[in-house]
């Protein structure tokens, strides 16, 4: 009786090629990453002094209407330390935070003193604690000092806020995404940026444990006053 031999299927290689494929892939990816970094080095971005400030795009209220605002659009990327470009004072608040309520007075004073040399930007977050719910109407009223009951943990009418109306952009950060990118868990917080967006002063690095105790007015005087 004759037996039919089945047609042999092609067999794979004796050695496992996947290790070699993995090494080749790792080599190619490393090369691409190195070339990418050579083309454009990875900048240090974050809230620490000396880093590039975290950028954001959000809705901004200017006293009349809301429009899109991108922080980095206002930077002077060619700043060399000696031009007349304006610095930035970034303030984080929550319209229901009592300390932010009283800081309104100091911000009004600082703006009067430094508005020719410093762009003021206030970012209104919404801390995740009871009685801190807010909305755009409350942010508008807090900035403009107009009548709206609900500021300062729902205890006060926004028109009673200390200080005058704030004549600078208020940014809506109701989702706390900007707050998160600045690695903040509370308000108020302030930072001073150089005209090219480099963080020059971070409140949390100077106040509290281990800090030198330098306050915002003194920092403005030291950094911007001599310009």
């Amino acid at each position, binding site marked *: 009786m004759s037996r039919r031999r089945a047609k042999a*299927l*092609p*067999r*794979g*290689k004796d050695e*496992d*090629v*996947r290790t*070699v*494929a*993995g090494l*080749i*892939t790792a080599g*190619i*990816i490393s090369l*691409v*990453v190195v*070339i*990418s*970094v050579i*083309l*454009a*080095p*990875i*900048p240090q*971005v974050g809230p620490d002094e000396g880093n*590039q400030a*975290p*950028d*954001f*795009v*959000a809705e901004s209220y200017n006293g009349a209407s809301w429009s*899109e605002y*991108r922080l*980095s659009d206002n*930077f002077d*990327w060619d700043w060399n330390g000696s031009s007349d470009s304006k610095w930035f004072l970034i303030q984080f608040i929550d319209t229901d935070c009592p300390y932010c309520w009283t800081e309104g007075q100091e911000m009004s004073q600082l703006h009067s003193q430094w508005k020719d040399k410093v762009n003021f930007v206030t970012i209104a977050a919404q801390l995740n604690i009871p009685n801190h719910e807010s909305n755009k109407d409350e942010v508008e009223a807090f900035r403009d000092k107009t009548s709206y009951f609900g500021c300062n943990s729902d205890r006060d009418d926004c028109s009673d806020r200390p200080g005058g109306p704030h004549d600078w952009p208020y940014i809506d950060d109701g989702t706390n*995404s900007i707050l998160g*990118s600045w690695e903040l868990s509370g308000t108020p917080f302030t930072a001073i940026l150089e005209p090219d*967006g480099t963080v020059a002063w971070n409140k949390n690095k100077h106040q509290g444990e281990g800090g030198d105790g330098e306050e915002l007015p003194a920092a403005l005087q030291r950094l911007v006053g001599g310009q």
Partner: protein
Amino acid sequence: MAIITVPLAIFLLGIGVSSFLLMRGREASGEEGTVGVLNASMGFSAVGIMGSGWTWSIHNSMLIGSSSMCATEGLVQCGSVIGDPQWNNLFGIPWGLIGIGSFAIIWFLVLSIRMDMHAKWTSNYVDLLYFVSLAGVPFVLWLVIVELTMVDGAPHICPYCTVIHIALLGMVASAYYLRQKKETGTWT
């Protein structure tokens, strides 16, 4: 800045050559056809890796100013898309870096199959390649929606991002044909 730059032209050429190889490999029978589709897959994933690297570089340069690597004005531009801090990241990781990682996995699978088409694990790897590629499609759709409707001054079309999206779709098609060849017994 001209829309068609040298890097963009190279990437487009890569897409064109890979598409040609895919069409030819799909029609050819047996091992020749399979090798053609695998070569097309390597082309698409190579464009994906290099394109992602390029967009990551644009992202890094835009963090400290405008980039000379892509136009920043007009409908077809990168500035408002790759330079947008709100949209150009997934859990803080730039999309360019995610693209490099994702296409690296695809490249590894394709290269492994290409190096030993008859290994026991080939069928599993072809299935894996298909599902990994397919998993990228929702992200591509999401990013297209973002650039057309959500970024600052939308709509915008980022040319390098589009090249990467096309590379992924080409990869899905390639993986689909490879799977078909396996299932219909026309692999060799």
